[in-house]
C-alpha cells in the first residue's frame, strides 16, 4: 500500500471524534459511529500487517517543522503490533463501554466517547512515530486526552486523583523525557528510530546510564517505581477507562516507548556492553517485586489490579534489558499477552461493579455462583497474569525466561520466578473464594450477571487470552524481525 496513506490511521479516529461530537444528541447514532470508527480503524491497521510481516517498512514524512526534526510516521514490527492491539481492543472496549456507561447511567457520555477516540488517535500516533519528536508529541496528546476520562466523575476526590495523574505524567515527560530527547538530538543530530541505535559513537560511559534513566523515568506511563503513583490514582476512573489505561493504550504506550527507545535509539548490542546501563534491570526487578508485595495487601479489587499492572509492566522492561534476542521477542509479546489478560480482569471488575456494586475483595466470596461467566473470564485472566498454560501469559514468560537463560542472567530468572509465586499468592485466593467459599455475612447476593454487551466483551477477551496460547505464530514471526540481525 502507498505509505502516504499512513496518516489515515490517525485521521480516522480524529474524524470519528468530530462525528461523535456532532451526533452527541442521539446516543444510538453516537455509539454506532464509535463502533463503526473502531471497526474501520482495526481493518485499516490490520491491512498493513502482511506488508510489515514481509519485511517492508513504510515511511511517510508529514512535515518538517525544524531542520532534522520531522513529523514522520513509519511502521515496524513493534509499532505494528501495538497499533493492532490498540485498534482491536478499542472495538471490544467500545462494546463494553456501551454496556457499562448505560448500565451505570454515567453523565457526559458524549465527552467520554470523544476523548476516547482522541486517545486512540494519540496511541496510533505513538505506534507509528518514526522519531522521538513525533513520539513525544503524541505521548503528550495521549496524556491530555485521557485526563478528562480519568476525571470523568467530576467530584472533588476524582479531580484530586486526576491532578496526580496529569501532574506525574506531564511533569516527568517535560522534566525528564524532553531533556533526554534534546540531549539525544544535540549529541547525534537526529531523533529517527534506526535499527541498531543512533547513540553509539556519540555518547559513552556513565552518560549512557544517565540518558537511559532520563528516558525510563521520563516515560512515566511505564510506571517504573517511583513514578508509578499516577496509576493507582487513576483508578477513580470508570472501568472502561481503566481498561483503556491498563490494556489498550496508556501503560502500553509507556512500555512500548521504552522498548522502542532501547532497540532503536540505544541499540541492543551497544547497551549490552555498557556497564552503566545495567542499573535498569535492578530498578525493574525492584518494581516487579515491590508492586507484587503491595498488591498482596490490597483489599480493593481495582487497586490490586493496578499494582499487578505496575509489576507486569516492569516485566516488559526487564525483558528488554536482558538484551538478548529471545528476551526482546518476549518483551514485545508480553505487551500483547498482558493486554489480553488485563483487559479481561478489568472488564470482570467492571461487570461485578455494574451488576452487584461490589468493589472490595471480601465481598467477592461466593460470587462465582451468581456470575459464572464473569468469574470464569476473571479466572482465565488471572491465570494468564501468573503465566499458567494454556494462557497468553505463559507464551511471553517462556520467551523472557529463554532470553534470560541465553544471557545467563540468573538475577532476572530469580526475579521472574519470585514474582510468579507472588502473583499466584494474590490471585489464587480470590479465585478460590469466589468459586468455593460461602458468601460473607451481610453481603447482598441478589444479583445476576452483568448486561449482555459487557458479557460479550468479556467472552471475546478471555477467549483471546487462551487462543493466543495456541495461535501466535504471525506475531512471533513479525517480532522476530526485530532481532534478526542480532547474534544469538
Amino acid at each position, binding site marked *: 500500500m502507498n505509505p502516504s496513506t499512513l496518516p489515515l490511521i490517525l485521521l480516522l479516529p480524529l474524524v470519528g471524534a468530530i462525528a461523535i461530537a456532532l451526533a452527541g444528541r442521539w446516543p444510538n447514532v453516537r455509539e454506532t459511529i464509535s463502533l463503526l470508527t473502531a471497526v474501520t480503524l482495526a481493518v485499516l491497521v490490520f491491512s498493513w500487517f502482511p506488508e510489515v510481516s514481509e519485511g517492508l517498512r513504510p515511511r511517510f514524512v508529514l512535515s518538517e*517543522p525544524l531542520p532534522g526534526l520531522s513529523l514522520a510516521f513509519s511502521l515496524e514490527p513493534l509499532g505494528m503490533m501495538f497499533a493492532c492491539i490498540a485498534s482491536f481492543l478499542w472495538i471490544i472496549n467500545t462494546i463494553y463501554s456501551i454496556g457499562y456507561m448505560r448500565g451505570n447511567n454515567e453523565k457526559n457520555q458524549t465527552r467520554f466517547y470523544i476523548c476516547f477516540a482522541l486517545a486512540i488517535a494519540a496511541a496510533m500516533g505513538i505506534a507509528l512515530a518514526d522519531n522521538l519528536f513525533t513520539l513525544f508529541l503524541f505521548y*503528550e496528546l495521549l496524556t491530555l486526552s485521557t485526563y478528562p476520562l480519568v476525571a470523568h466523575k467530576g467530584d472533588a476526590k476524582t479531580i484530586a486523583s486526576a491532578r496526580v495523574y496529569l501532574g506525574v505524567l506531564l511533569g516527568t515527560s517535560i522534566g525528564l523525557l524532553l531533556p533526554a530527547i534534546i540531549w539525544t538530538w544535540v549529541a547525534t543530530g537526529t531523533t529517527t528510530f534506526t535499527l541498531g541505535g543512533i547513540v553509539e559513537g556519540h555518547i559513552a560511559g556513565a552518560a549512557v546510564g544517565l540518558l537511559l534513566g532520563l528516558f525510563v523515568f521520563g516515560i512515566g506511563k511505564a510506571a517504573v517505581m517511583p513514578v508509578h503513583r499516577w496509576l493507582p490514582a487513576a483508578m477513580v476512573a470508570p472501568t472502561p477507562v481503566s481498561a483503556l489505561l491498563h490494556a489498550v493504550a496508556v501503560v502500553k504506550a509507556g512500555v512500548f516507548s521504552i522498548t522502542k527507545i532501547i532497540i532503536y535509539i540505544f541499540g541492543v548490542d551497544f547497551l549490552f556492553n555498557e556497564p552503566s546501563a545495567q542499573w535498569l534491570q535492578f530498578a525493574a526487578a525492584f518494581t516487579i517485586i515491590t508492586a507484587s508485595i503491595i498488591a498482596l495487601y490490597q483489599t480493593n479489587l481495582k487497586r490490586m489490579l493496578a499494582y499487578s499492572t505496575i509489576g507486569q509492566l516492569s516485566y516488559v522492561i526487564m525483558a528488554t534489558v536482558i538484551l538478548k534476542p529471545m528476551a526482546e521477542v518476549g518483551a514485545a509479546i508480553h505487551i500483547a499477552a498482558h493486554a489480553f489478560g488485563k483487559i479481561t480482569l478489568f472488564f470482570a471488575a467492571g461487570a461485578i461493579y455494574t451488576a452487584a456494586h461490589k468493589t472490595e475483595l471480601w465481598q467477592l466470596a461466593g460470587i462465582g455462583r451468581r456470575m459464572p461467566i464473569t468469574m470464569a473470564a476473571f479466572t482465565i485472566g488471572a491465570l494468564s497474569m501468573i503465566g499458567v498454560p494454556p494462557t497468553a501469559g505463559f507464551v511471553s514468560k517462556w520467551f523472557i525466561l529463554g532470553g534470560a537463560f541465553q544471557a545467563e542472567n540468573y538475577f532476572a530468572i530469580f526475579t521472574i520466578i519470585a514474582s510468579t509465586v507472588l502473583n499466584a499468592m494474590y490471585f489464587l485466593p480470590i479465585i478460590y473464594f469466589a468459586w468455593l467459599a460461602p458468601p460473607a455475612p451481610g453481603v447482598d447476593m441478589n444479583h445476576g450477571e452483568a448486561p449482555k454487551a459487557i458479557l460479550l466483551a468479556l467472552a471475546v477477551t478471555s477467549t483471546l487470552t487462551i487462543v493466543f496460547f495456541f495461535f501466535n505464530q504471525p506475531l512471533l514471526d513479525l517480532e522476530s524481525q526485530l532481532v534478526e540481525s542480532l547474534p544469538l
Partner: protein
Amino acid sequence: MNLADHLPALQVIVPLMTAPLVILLRNGFLAWLGALLASLASFGLAILLTVAVLGAGVPEYAMGGWQPPFGISLNVDGLSALMLLLVTGASTLGLAGGRLSLRRDIDNRRAPMFYGAWLIALAGLCGIAVAGDAFNVFVFMEISSLATYILIAAGRDRRALSAVFKYLIIGTIGATFYLIGVGFIYMMTGTLNFADMALRLADVIETRPIIIAAGFITIGLALKAAVFPLHIWLPRAYTYAPNAVTVFIAACSTKVAIYVLLRFNYGVFHGNLLAHSDLFTVFIIPLALSGILLASAIAIYQGNIKKMLAFSSVAQIGYIALAAGLATHAGLMAAQLHMFNHALAKGTLFLCVLAFVLTTGSASFSNLAGIGRRMPWTMAAFVIAGLSLVGVPGTAGFVSKWYLIVAVMGMPGWGVPLVMAIILSSLLAVVYLWRFVELAYYGQPPDGDVSRMEVPLPLRTLIWSAALANIYFGLVPQLPLALAESGTTTLLGGLLP
C-alpha cells in the same frame, strides 16, 4: 519611485494619518470601523514588507530624499518585519475581537478619541520597528507610550488610573535613561543613525561616556521591557486595562522594547565594546532567570486570570531576555522566535479572557468557575493557546522552547543548570494554567447556572483562528524561522560564528 518603494514610510503614516480622521467621526461604531480598517491596512503593509524582506530585501529608505546620516532613514530587515507583523497583527486582533467588549468599556462619546489614541499607539510601535536612528526610536517610543497610557486608563475600572500612573512614572524613567544614553553617544560620536554610530564608535571605544551610555540604555530599555525585577508596572497595567487593550499591548508592547535592546546591544555596542557582550550576559541572565522562576511561581497564587497571565508574561519576557543574553547565533534565533510565538499565545489567551469577561462580567477565578462547560469553544481555544505557552510539541511555543534549550545547551559550563531552570519554569506554567483549566471545567459556577452561553460566532471564529495559528506555526514554522534567521544575520553582522 513607485508606491511600493514607500512601504516603510507608509507603515507609520497610514495609522498616524488615520488617527485624526477617526477622532473627527462622531460615532463609536464608525470610529471603530475606521481604526480597524487602518489597522488592517497596516497589517497588509507589514505582510508586503515581510515578503519584500524575504525576497530581494528592502533598501534603506531616506525620508524626504535626505540621505543618511544627515536625513532620517528607515530600515526594514527580518527583525523589523517580525516586529511589524506582531504589532499590526496584535492591533488588528484586539480591534476585531474587541468591538463588543470595547462598546461596553468605552463611553460612546469618547470612543472616537479612544480609537484615535489606539492608532497613534500603533503608529508609534510601527515607527520604532522601522526607524533607523536612535532619536527617532525615542520619539516613537514616547508617542506609543503616551498613547498606551490613555488606552489603559480609558476603561471603566478606576483602579486602572493608579496602575497607569505607576506605568507612566516608570515608563518615563526608562525613556529618560534611554535618552541620556543616546545623548552621551551623540556627544562622543556626533551621530544618531544606528549604522553610522556603529562605525564611529570605533574611534571612542572604552571611553567612560560610552560605557555609561551602554548602561543607561540597557537599564532604560529593561524597564520598558519589564525585565524582572523592573516589571512592577506590568501586572496591574495589564489587569485593569480594558480587555481589548490588554490583547493589543500584552502581545507586542514589551517586545518592542526588547527589539530596541537587541538593536543597540548587538548592532551598535557588540562590535565595538570589547567586554560588552560579557557584561550584558552577566547583567541580563541572572535577572532573566529570576524572572523565569519567580514570576511563574507568583502566577500560581493569583486569583484573577488577567493578573495570572500578566505574571506569566513577565516570566516569558525572562525567556526572551535569557535567550538574547546568550550572545550566540542560536540564542538570538530563540529570542526572536519566542517573541513571535509568545505574542501568538498571549494574544490568543487574552482574547479568550476577553470573551469570558464579555459573558460573565469579571475576570476573577471565583466568577469563572465552570466556564469551560458554559463556553466550551472558547475554553478549548484557551487550552490550545495555554499548551503553546507551556511549550507542548505541535504548538508554536514548542519551536521556540526547543531553540532556547538548544541555545542554552551550547553554553559551556552552565548549560545544564539553565536547562533545568527552563524545564522547572515550564512545569510551573503547567501548574498555574492547569489551576485555571481544572476550575473552568470542573468548578461549580457561582450561581449554579451551567447553561450554554457563547460569544457571537464572528468572535468565536477569530478566537479559533488565533488558536489554530498557534498550531500552524508549531508545525510549519518556516516564516518566523526565516525572519529570525535574517534578523540574526543583521544583528550579528558576521561578528559571531
